[in-house]
């Protein structure tokens, strides 16, 4: 019985070794070809980004978005407002009308800022510059403090239908990051 088991074990070991040898020689004419003449083998590298999801990192900073409106200077002779330099909407403070989108991603991205008026304030329209989708470059090769960014500026036009003694919401901004 002992001999029988030993024989089986020996045969199994031989079978395993022969399979390994065939595996090494697969695709090569000989085992020598597979491992190289000097017993060496090339080390090969391929850049495989397929399993890495792009993780985007984006900063958005916006001003208070508060504007003052003036109809202009009243002209008692014509009973109209003269459209002088004060007429229209002006930002309440510097940069109140700006949205800055900064890209910290290792890929470029496309940003758009759009204004949508509130249903109760259709008398006031807004336009954002630049209006078209804007490509913000990749952050690769840039310092964190100097990451690529794009500044968008909102301008309002029209006139409020009623007096607004306090700052009142007239619309919203949507930043689309594509």
């Amino acid at each position, binding site marked *: 019985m002992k001999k029988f088991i030993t024989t089986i074990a020996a045969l199994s070991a031989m079978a395993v070794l022969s399979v390994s040898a065939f595996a090494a020689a697969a695709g090569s004419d000989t085992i020598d070809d597979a491992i190289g003449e000097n017993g060496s083998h090339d080390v090969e590298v391929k850049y495989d980004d397929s399993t890495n*999801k792009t993780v*985007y*990192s984006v*900063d*958005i900073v916006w001003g208070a978005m508060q504007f003052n409106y003036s109809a202009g200077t009243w002209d008692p002779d014509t009973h109209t407002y003269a459209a002088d330099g004060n007429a229209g909407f002006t930002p309440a*403070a510097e940069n109140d009308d700006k949205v800055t989108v900064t890209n910290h991603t290792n890929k470029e991205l496309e940003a758009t800022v759009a204004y949508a008026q509130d249903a109760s304030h259709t008398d006031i329209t807004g336009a954002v510059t630049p209006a078209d989708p804007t490509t913000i470059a990749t952050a690769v090769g840039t310092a964190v403090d100097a990451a690529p960014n794009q500044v968008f500026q909102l301008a309002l036009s029209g006139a409020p239908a009623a007096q607004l003694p306090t700052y009142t919401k007239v619309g*919203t*901004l949507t*930043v689309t*990051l594509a």
Partner: protein
Amino acid sequence: MVDEEKGNQKEEKKEEKIKKTRLLLLLLLLLLLLLGSISVTVWAVWFRKPAVVLSPDYAPQHVEEYAESMDDGEDSKLEQPEGGGAVSLTYSREVTIDLSEKKAGLLFANPSKSNQNMVLQLVIDDTLIVQSGRLEPGNRVTTLDLLEGTETMLSKGGYEGKFIVLFYQPDSGEKAMLNTEIPVEITVQE
């Protein structure tokens, strides 16, 4: 004797008729029930719309239950203009939805340098599928629950959708006048 037999036969026939009629009525009732249940199932699966969920005007009271700390080691905050806002967003554009688990797998974070709380929504064809609770700076989510009933509107395959990110002032809870939309690719699995 013969008359009696004839009478019995008549009664048996009558009883048989009544039995047949009852059986027919029973079958008819079962058929109606079957049709009714099929109609209800078809309506529930294909036509029932989930309850409309509105975007909150004030930050939700509940912190998102799946939120986990990012431990991003960020101490400083973004500079924010007075009256304005400053946020940082970290996200992946790939989303998976597991219909059996009724969960969405995603990557979205509100890094510590942000100055606002956030609420994340996932929308397909103007239908809200997912809405997070309050996500405070320094937290991220990788899983969110589907809104009740939305799993019946989806089937295995790919969808194009979008994240809508709403921002809220941490002190007052007021919604900012600016929000963000991010197109995403959604893979739905059974």
